[in-house]
């Protein structure tokens, strides 16, 4: 399941929903991305997340399908917010559920790494120094491509 929304999410309620009536789940991993009040040397007061309606949903579904083809997951959920956020606000939630913990841990990390470099979201930060579009981080690119290598090695 994927969702793109302006409103906040309740992590406890999302986990409860994911495992309701499911006796086949033995491990749930939750990742929550939240907003920092600093970016490098600059204070950040506010962040606006723009996205590409339509492609965002399509891309998140592709990323989720890829994770489910790589690991035996019983369930998964990606919730990503857009709009204007403030420090400590939730940005993204990834839940993965599996029979044993390894698949859930690895799939959650994979989903975040892929989402960072593929889901069409753009952050614009503003603070006392003005506003600027956040630049893509080379470390995110590296984190994402390592899964390509792992896949190649497995083939």
């Amino acid at each position, binding site marked *: 399941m994927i969702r793109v929304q302006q409103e906040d999410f309740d992590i406890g309620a999302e986990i409860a929903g994911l495992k309701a009536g499911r006796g086949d789940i033995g491990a749930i991993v939750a990742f929550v991305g939240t907003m920092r009040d600093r970016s490098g040397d600059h204070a950040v007061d506010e962040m606006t997340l723009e996205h590409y309606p339509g492609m965002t949903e399509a891309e998140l579904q592709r990323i989720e399908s890829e994770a489910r083809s790589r690991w035996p997951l019983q369930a998964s959920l990606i919730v990503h917010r857009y709009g204007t956020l403030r420090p400590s606000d939730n940005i993204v939630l990834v839940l993965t559920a599996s029979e044993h913990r390894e698949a859930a841990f690895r799939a959650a990390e994979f989903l975040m790494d892929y989402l960072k470099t593929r889901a069409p979201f753009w952050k614009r930060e503003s603070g006392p120094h003005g506003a600027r579009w956040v*630049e893509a981080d080379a470390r995110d690119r590296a984190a994402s491509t390592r899964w390509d290598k792992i896949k190649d090695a497995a083939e």
Partner: protein
Amino acid sequence: MRLLYFAWVKEKTGVAAEDVDIPAHITTVAELMAWLKTRGPEFDHAFARFEVIRAAIDQAHVRHDAAIGAAREIAFFPPVTGG
């Protein structure tokens, strides 16, 4: 063809979405960007660093050498920064 622009590409072109008649000789995303650059100072500025701009055809990521073919919608945007 429907063209969409996001983030600083949108800011620089001053356009979020438009329907454009693309000349028949343009067959790839790279050629389309080179042509868009000639549409005025805003577009010239927006596509100045065209090598960093990413593209999507019908809501899927593509490379600059991708064929436009029968695309309905082409989007241009900076590298993504979600998550």
